[in-house]
């Protein structure tokens, strides 16, 4: 499952959904990216994410498929938000379900690294000193 959405998401609901994917899931690993207050020495008031939606959906789907094949995990969910995101709010969630923990951790790390490297998504930091695309 891949989702690019403006609204917030429930980590718990998605973990429950992953557990229901297979009776053979023995490990669920999640990565949750959250908006933090300080970045590069500046106080951040709010973030704004922009996304090239059609391309981002294709890229995230590709990363998901690669993670499932490369690490032999059961399933991967990726949710990324866009639009205005306040401090402490959720930005991105990766949920990996697998038979064992090792491949679940590895697949989760692979997904977030590849999202940062390949997904056409951009972050703007709004600070007291001005707004910056980072």
């Amino acid at each position, binding site marked *: 499952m891949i989702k690019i959405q403006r609204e917030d998401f429930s980590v718990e609901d998605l973990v429950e959904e992953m557990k229901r994917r297979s009776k053979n899931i023995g490990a669920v690993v999640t990565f949750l990216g959250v908006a933090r207050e300080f970045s590069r020495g500046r106080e951040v008031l709010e973030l704004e*994410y922009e996304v090239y939606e059609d391309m981002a959906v294709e890229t995230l789907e590709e990363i998901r498929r690669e993670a499932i094949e490369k690490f032999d995990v059961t399933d991967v969910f990726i949710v990324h938000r866009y639009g205005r995101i306040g401090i402490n709010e959720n930005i991105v969630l990766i949920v990996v379900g697998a038979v064992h923990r090792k491949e679940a951790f590895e697949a989760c790390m692979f997904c977030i690294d590849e999202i940062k490297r390949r997904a056409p998504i951009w972050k703007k930091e709004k600070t007291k000193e001005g707004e910056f*695309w980072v």
Partner: protein
Amino acid sequence: MPIIKFFAKFREEIGFGVLRLDVDNLSLNELIEVLARDYPKVRDFVKEGFLAVNRRIVRDTNTIVKRDDEVAFLPKFSGG
């Protein structure tokens, strides 16, 4: 007419997100030069970021752009 898209920092710098160009069968290099006549900033965009044709990153600027293609100027990514 190929559709040209600009995102994030590039969209703000050029002042719009989408443009239609009345050309066909041009290389990316030629297309960049056509755009640069009105918007010289696009030359910097090419140096600074990536180009995508039909939602795929393209590094070879000799790639031919056809009438129905979608070309996007993408700043360096900062998702996640």
